[in-house]
């Protein structure tokens, strides 16, 4: 059992509330990504699981054990730090071995004991082989590349066979190419170990590509939890809508118009249809914020709204058309082969009503 469960967990540093009433259950064997901008409390949440920060309020469980007062070393978790935190003065082998030296392990005969040096060496060899570090065991961290150091940090985390892996932005010090490669390797590692991974990042690409589920945090509060695609498709509030997706979702204020037989949202002098809006108890004249992802905006001669092109950004396989819509900047994502557009063109736009999101401008919550 290596479920990790936050139940109303709050962490305060003096007057600052870093994590506010977090309730989140991470399932056994799940790859959970805590996603949010810097300062959102994601790292603090992870550090509470590790035992590096105390819990101010609420209960934190790992498996069936409440760990609020359990020391870090007794929690059976391993952490990979952003800087890797390798010991610079000892070899790779000693670094990997380090979690095995001081702790006691249950080796199957019931009572936990310290491992013999032969057992430790065996585990180090195994972890090093799993991560392709066998030839580097005699080196010191200073003689390794960034990617190799990162793998040493992973091997050090693996070697104690923890109930949960905690990772704090482990890819942020790698270059783009290596990062993409390591994402795949981490997913493979997760499948092979079948252990709970709690992974902290501000990078939505990492979150989307690796997570079983994403937990989006902002200002210490949980905004939404769910599988990546579900979070992308149905953001619960404006923060999630704007944070996930690159370029971000277009959000423009509008007004609900109810007239006989039709319900739409008016933006400036134009209106756009929204699926399911008729069923919502929204009165005529209600202020809303309408959101459409850049790829869901389509240029169509029968389009309901018109936007003027201000700039076109070519990205090779696609282009981003930046437009002005009733005084608001919006972005349209188009394939490179679509009809050419130029600055100053006025584009008639339409969107699948099923892909239009409505948010309450006051509460920022989703309305449809």
């Amino acid at each position, binding site marked *: 059992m290596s479920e990790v469960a936050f139940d109303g967990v709050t962490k305060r540093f003096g007057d600052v509330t870093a994590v506010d009433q977090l309730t989140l259950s991470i399932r056994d064997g799940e790859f959970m990504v805590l996603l949010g901008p810097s300062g959102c409390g994601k790292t603090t949440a992870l550090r509470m699981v590790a035992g590096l920060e105390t819990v101010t309020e609420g209960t934190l469980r790992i498996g069936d054990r409440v760990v609020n007062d359990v020391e*870090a070393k007794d929690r059976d978790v*391993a952490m990979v*730090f952003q800087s890797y*935190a*390798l010991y*610079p003065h000892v070899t790779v082998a000693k670094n990997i071995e*380090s979690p095995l030296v001081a*702790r006691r392990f249950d080796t199957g005969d019931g009572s936990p004991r310290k491992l013999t040096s032969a057992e430790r060496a065996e585990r180090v060899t195994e972890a090093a082989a799993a991560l392709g570090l066998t030839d580097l065991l005699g080196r010191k961290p*200073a003689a390794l590349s960034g990617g190799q150091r990162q793998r040493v940090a992973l091997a050090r985390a693996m070697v104690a066979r923890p109930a949960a892996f905690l990772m704090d932005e482990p890819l942020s010090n790698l270059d783009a190419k290596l990062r993409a490669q390591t994402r795949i390797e981490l997913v493979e590692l997760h499948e092979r170990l079948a252990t709970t991974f709690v992974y902290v990042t501000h990078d939505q690409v990492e979150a989307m590509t690796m997570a079983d589920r994403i937990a989006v945090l902002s200002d210490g509060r949980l905004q939404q939890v769910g599988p990546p695609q579900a979070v992308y498709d149905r953001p619960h509030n404006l923060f999630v809508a704007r944070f996930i997706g690159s370029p971000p979702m277009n959000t423009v204020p509008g007004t609900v118009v109810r007239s006989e037989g039709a319900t739409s949202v008016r933006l400036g002098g134009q209106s756009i249809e929204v699926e399911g809006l008729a069923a919502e108890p929204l009165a005529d004249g209600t202020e809303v914020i309408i959101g459409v992802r850049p790829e869901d905006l389509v240029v169509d001669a029968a389009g309901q709204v018109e936007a003027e092109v201000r700039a076109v950004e070519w990205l090779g396989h696609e282009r981003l058309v930046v437009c002005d819509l009733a005084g608001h900047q919006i972005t349209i994502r188009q394939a490179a082969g679509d009809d050419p557009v130029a600055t100053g063109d006025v584009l008639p736009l339409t969107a699948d009503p099923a892909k239009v999101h409505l948010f309450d401008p006051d509460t920022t919550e989703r309305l449809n």
Partner: protein
Amino acid sequence: MTRRAREALLGYALLVPSAIVFAWFFFYPLYRLFVMGLHQQNRTGTAERWVGWSHFGDVLGGEQFREGVRITGTYVLYTVPLGLVLGVLLAVAANRRLKGIKVFQMIFSSTIASSVAVASVIFVVLLNPQIGYFASVKMFSLSDPDTALRGVALSSVWQNLGLTFVIVLAGLQAVPDEVDEAATLDGYGPVRRFFRVTLPLISPTLMFLAVVLVIFALQAFAQADILTQGGPLGSTETLVWKIFNSQQPVDQGTGAVMAIGLFGITLVVSLAQFLILDRRVHYGN
């Protein structure tokens, strides 16, 4: 002229000012020291007589110099290890995120602002056999030839403590928190963390301090002069004290040779420290 030659010329030209200063204030005095060491002076130092290299052998092999080396060596042993250990202890104690810790850090580092003379005067009073606060602590008594050097060393340890503290604290603060946290997760207790992680990581700092403190100790003069005037029975006559006092009535030549001897010792000890410690010191990346 090739570009390479022009650049080399410019490089040397830029070195000239510092070379002049160095020659003036270092190489010329050193040369003069050698010349003095090869001569015997009259009382006023206005006339000198060639005595040659045998003077070096006589002085460096003589009783006075050997006694000075023994006393100075003992002084190094008294001051350096104790100073380092105390400095590390204070720095570890003060390296926390606590309210008001800055006050303690300021107090611990305050001896930086005191000179050797001030420190010595303070200890003259503290160790005074009649009115001193430590008068009853016999192991530091300045009036006993067996313990006087310890008393002098104590004042020096106290005076250098501020510097040691500040430098060790800076070293500790350069140790990444994450490495310490990784060690915590690895199950290392505070003591093990200190010896297995912190100490190796601050070893470059400690090596630097060891070299500096040894050189300070080899050059000790004012403490001995103010606290004990070299006594009792010459038990606190450090090398520099002997060098200085040998010039006093007559013998500048002897002092010069001893000074060259001390220079040689300092050079060898520093080089040895670098060579030995460098292999055991762990530089991060």
